[in-house]
């Protein structure tokens, strides 16, 4: 289908984009990479009055490493992440996950900030950001605020961003020497949205977990940390106990691809696979 008619304006700075957002209000949509927005427009699931194109704000397309960690500009594209030695070194979970994000022709346009702000429950990056305990930097008319990943995803395609705010960067703490990560997703075809996926990040010392975050995606309405399962593993509990706890951590949904009970089963399969591999590797 063809998109409904809309106006278009290109912003060249965050300040300009913010004032355009304020001026046009809820009728406006930000256009970053457009790889989720354009399908929604073409399918007429979304019909904004005006698109504010922020994709050429070059200041937001950057990967900076400093003693305080990684700072990734919101308009950094998936292909940029994939090709970055800094990401491979300081957030290898992202490098590992990004190859599962759609296909080369979409990774060349799609952005990390766009993916996070879109908050698709089946997307890989929200779960990675949860597992990495990242911070999201938002700019609005009242200035800059930092939102922890754990309180960013609030519902189905819903985030803690206010309508007049723009996500500008993602901050990730420096990796510890004992950091380890794991990632796996189950999909029917390469590049498809996962039926269930798991992005995990943790630390191990003397054969035990000192830190572990299990970010599930495509299970329920939003990317979710399996807090109780992680707690059990950190406390020295077994994988069986942790797998059982997933029943309390996750609220899987039914859809055409899989039933809720299949999803929970698959979430447990992934837990065993990913955690076992991380324990063996660490």
């Amino acid at each position, binding site marked *: *289908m*063809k*998109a*409904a*008619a*809309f*106006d*278009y304006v*290109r912003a060249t700075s965050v300040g300009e984009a913010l004032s355009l957002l304020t001026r046009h209000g809820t009728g406006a949509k930000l*256009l970053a990479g*457009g*790889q989720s927005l*354009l*399908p929604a*427009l*073409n*399918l007429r699931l979304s019909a904004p009055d005006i*698109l504010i*194109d922020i*994709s050429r704000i070059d200041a937001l397309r950057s990967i900076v490493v400093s003693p305080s960690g990684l700072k990734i500009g919101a308009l950094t594209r998936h*292909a940029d992440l994939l090709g970055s030695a800094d990401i491979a070194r300081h957030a290898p979970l992202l490098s590992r996950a990004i190859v599962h994000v*759609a*296909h*080369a*022709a*979409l990774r*060349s*346009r799609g952005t990390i900030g766009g993916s996070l702000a879109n908050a698709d429950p089946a997307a890989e990056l929200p779960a990675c950001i949860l597992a990495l305990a990242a911070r999201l930097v938002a700019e609005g008319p009242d200035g800059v605020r930092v939102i922890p990943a754990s309180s960013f995803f609030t519902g189905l395609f819903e985030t803690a961003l206010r309508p007049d705010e723009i996500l500008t960067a993602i901050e990730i703490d420096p990796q510890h020497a004992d950091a380890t990560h794991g990632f796996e997703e189950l999909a029917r*075809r*390469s*590049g498809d949205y996962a039926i269930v996926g798991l992005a995990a990040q943790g630390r191990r010392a003397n054969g035990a977990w000192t830190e572990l975050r299990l970010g599930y995606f495509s299970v329920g309405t939003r990317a979710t940390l399996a807090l109780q399962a992680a707690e059990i593993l950190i406390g020295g509990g077994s994988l069986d106990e942790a797998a059982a706890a997933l029943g309390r951590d996750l609220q899987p949904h039914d859809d055409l691809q899989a039933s809720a009970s299949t999803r929970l089963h698959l979430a447990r399969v992934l837990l065993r696979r990913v955690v076992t591999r991380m324990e063996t590797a660490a």
Partner: protein
Amino acid sequence: MNITLSVNGETVTADVLPRTHLVDFLREQLGLTGSHLGCEHGVCGACTVRLDGDIVRGCLVLAVQADGCVVETIEGLSDTGEIADLQAAFIARNALQCGFCTPAMLIAAQDLLRHGGVPTREEIREHLSGNYCRCTGYQAIVDAVEQTARQRHDAVESTAGTREAAR
């Protein structure tokens, strides 16, 4: 809105509606019908074109977003001879039937091949996984891409060998 861009090496200035995506613009305003429109929501890959050197879904980029950019379509890649060997391999291997997916398949395959080396069949399949073909079952396409990769690799090797021998 007025846009100016380079399409297959020629500078084009045009007036487009904001909602017009790149492939509709190429097909309907410029008559470049080699880029096809299948699903129109980024799944089938038939609209793949090059934008500033990277492959993109032409249905997921607005024409206004291509303002100031360099666009290359199958017409351009054919005319420059950049993929002549790949096209010949597609014909030799019977890697197309109806041909609807073929222009995009060639562009996606060339995107992999231009990075050099000989990709494994698995890597070829992975790179083409965003391009649907409903006729061939993909086997012959992978064959053609693999054959072209080998030929290019051998050509580079033999050129290097000739240079070595001439010393």
